[in-house]
């Protein structure tokens, strides 16, 4: 690790992609993540990389497909409405098993919504925004440092599983500055995806031609491909579930499940809850897909109430219910419209839910 620098989230996100070896970034401006594009517009030429502002998010998603299909480590960033436009390309990218990485710096919706922080793209990210049975690996950082670390990790995961990886942050993480230790490498990572010669389009010189496609007209071929994808998803589920647990030892009155910025607010709220004698713990999913179902299920056994706390009107709570399987009451506390609740509001919300349950 290098020395600490104070960086704005969006700029750190851009720098992390470069550190991970990525030399290709395509984008379309949208608040609150445009600084990623502005940063990389300067930075990519410095490192001999490709920066291109496309004509739309739709086009950008296919620029990603093209570059990803050519075996190049490629990255984009966008925010909620932009991700909706990219959704078309995402289905194709996932089907073609291209190792691209993107980040959604979420803003409030639905529709144009606004530019303030939200987590209401949970369904979009984890359940698949586009058509068909596919999954992105979805990771949710809760600090600038974690965003950097997870982006570097994302490029490795994308390469390892030949699967797209999406990070979901929010406007808060994009806009705030925190000290960051940028990772250092003995050998700088390659801008090309390992093993791409076997499948990527680079010109069929001295080998059989490669074909990157998503059309399977033969139903059996189509089913086989789906089965292959599902097998890969099972492997990812077995290997890549990540979460942080805080104060989950012993029996609990309430277990909070929260991610990203909201989890940080919860951490502060937990202190005031404890001061009022509540035995409270938290599980912060870092991987939203795959989701830590089993761990939440285990913790639910020794908890009186599980509460999903989100910057949405209730999305992750469905996965929490899926985890708990009715063994323990599940409550929900959330805010929308770009409002980030204060720790006191969260505390009061939790206390109310405890009274009701």
């Amino acid at each position: 690790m290098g020395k600490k620098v104070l960086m704005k989230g969006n700029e750190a996100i851009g720098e992390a992609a470069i550190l991970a070896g990525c030399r290709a970034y395509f984008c379309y401006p949208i608040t609150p993540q445009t600084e990623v594009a502005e940063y990389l517009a300067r930075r990519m030429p410095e490192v001999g990389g490709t920066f291109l502002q496309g004509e739309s998010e739709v086009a950008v998603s296919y620029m990603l497909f093209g570059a990803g299909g050519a075996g190049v480590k490629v990255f984009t960033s966008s925010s909620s409405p932009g991700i909706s436009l990219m959704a078309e390309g995402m289905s194709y990218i996932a089907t073609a098993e291209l190792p691209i990485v993107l980040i959604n710096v979420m803003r409030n919706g639905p529709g144009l919504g606004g530019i303030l922080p939200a987590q209401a793209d949970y369904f979009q990210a984890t359940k698949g925004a586009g058509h068909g049975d596919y999954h992105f690996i979805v990771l949710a950082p809760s600090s600038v440092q974690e965003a950097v670390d997870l982006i570097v990790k994302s490029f490795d995961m994308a390469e390892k599983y030949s699967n797209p990886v999406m990070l979901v942050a929010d406007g808060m993480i994009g806009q705030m500055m925190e000290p960051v230790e940028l990772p250092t490498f003995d050998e700088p990572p390659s801008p090309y995806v390992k093993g791409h010669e076997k499948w990527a389009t680079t010109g069929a010189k001295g080998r059989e031609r490669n074909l990157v496609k998503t059309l399977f007209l033969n139903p059996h071929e189509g089913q086989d491909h789906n089965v292959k994808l599902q097998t890969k998803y099972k492997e990812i589920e077995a290997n890549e579930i990540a979460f942080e647990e805080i104060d989950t030892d012993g029996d609990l009155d309430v277990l909070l499940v929260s991610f990203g910025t909201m989890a940080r607010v919860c951490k502060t709220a937990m202190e005031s809850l404890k001061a009022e004698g509540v035995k409270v713990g938290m599980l912060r999913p870092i991987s939203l897909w795959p989701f830590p179902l089993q761990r939440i299920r285990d913790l639910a056994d020794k908890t009186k109430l599980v509460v999903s706390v989100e910057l949405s009107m209730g999305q992750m709570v469905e996965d929490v219910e899926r985890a708990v399987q009715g063994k323990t009451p599940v409550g929900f506390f959330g805010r929308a419209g770009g409002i980030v609740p204060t720790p006191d509001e969260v505390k009061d919300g939790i206390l109310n839910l405890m009274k009701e349950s």
Partner: protein
Amino acid sequence: MATTVFKRPESMSTNITHYCPGCTHGIVHRLVGEVLDELGLRERAIGIAPVGCSVLCYNYFNIDFQESAHGRAPAMATGIKRTRPDTIVFTYQGDGDLASIGTNELIHAANRGERITTVFVNNAIYGMTGGQMAPTTMPGQVTTTCPMGRDVQTMGHPLRVSEMLATLKTPSYIARVAVHKPSYVIEAKRALKKAFQYQVEGRCYSLVEFLSTCPTNWAMTPSQSTKWLEDTMLPYYPLGEFKTPDEEE
């Protein structure tokens, strides 16, 4: 000892195409193959397949290929060419794909001067979905979605893609050719070869629009289709080079 003076180009595979009898997609495919062979580009070439009748066109080539979503081929080509500048990238697109859903991607790739080549097959109709109106459908032409004939009062006039692109200031090579008769096919190949040559030289974006026939959806014999193209399409879609990079330099 006989000399073979005409055979399938090496850049093509031996697969039999799924196109209907008399469909000129096959001719355009062959021209692409011949040009890639003659310019020695087979091992550098990456094609982008569209959505439309030619969605499976990668089956007929012996080169690297990516398959795009409907209309997005120029964006995909941009992604490849920008990150692999030594490759020769071309999109193969029909008029529904290129001139309707993909107009935005097309215009912006051309306007950025992407060093790619677009092979544009204009047969004035949606073929794969069974003969619906395209932006390039002729006035009065009957299709399944304009059963009384295209009414220009409500649907506008056919889109002249080549002319439109030629208005862009960014240097490019834009030509319209036809492939309904041998003499036109020979001219068409000259234009296509230029288009690829400009890409090899890294000079500009290039597009060749091929006026083509669709006997099945036009409900004509191949021979009648040839005549219809000549009588109806040629007067509205004049052939020629609309722009060359030399003009701007």
